[in-house]
């Protein structure tokens, strides 16, 4: 199994600022993902973080708003740029790997934008 940690666990930010969320996996994984979970809603995939290349974004999400890095097989960052109150959400890092190709999730980062 893979254990995923995220920093920060929560933050309160002002409109117009940016926040970078870090994700660390304790073992090498094949794929890493970033999800958003808005209040009372399900998980929505933002993008797949690709090692050493640009992330692959889902429909409705763009690199300028959610720049993502993945410099190696165990670490990724997601930046939420130029934040507005609509960005208030839980952001989840996820990774897939292991013998059964299981997908694991981090504890989430709870973001509140004022």
């Amino acid at each position: 199994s893979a254990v995923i940690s995220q920093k920060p666990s929560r933050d309160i930010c002002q409109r117009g600022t940016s926040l970078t969320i870090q994700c660390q996996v304790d073992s090498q994984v094949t794929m890493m993902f970033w999800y958003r979970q808005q209040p009372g809603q399900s998980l929505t995939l933002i993008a797949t973080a690709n090692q050493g290349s640009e992330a692959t974004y889902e429909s409705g999400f763009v690199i300028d708003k959610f720049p993502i890095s993945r410099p190696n097989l165990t670490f990724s960052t997601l930046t939420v740029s130029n934040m507005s109150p609509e960005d208030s959400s839980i952001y989840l890092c996820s990774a897939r790997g292991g013998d059964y190709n299981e997908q694991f999730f981090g504890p989430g980062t709870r973001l509140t934008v004022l």
Partner: protein
Amino acid sequence: AQRVTQPEKLLSVFKGAPVELKCNYSYSGSPELFWYVQYSRQRLQLLLRHISRESIKGFTADLNKGETSFHLKKPFAQEEDSAMYYCALIRLTGGGNKLTFGTGTQLKVEL
């Protein structure tokens, strides 16, 4: 479009009663389906996957391709089963396999 539907936002049952959490999907091809669970103040974790055909914590789920369903069942609910349950589907894309989640069902087991 590949989609997962969980029609119930909240399901309340009494301890010892049977539980069935509904999940329907739409997918063109052979689906790979999962149930994930999130207990209070814990992270999301895999409960079971249809490929393994196993029972975890007394829960089972059978893939019914005719009804495009993957309902989660347990014969006797326990208090510790109270949690949020998500049905999910692996969808094949040009960028790799990606998990699509349903909206989730909050299971509340009452004494």
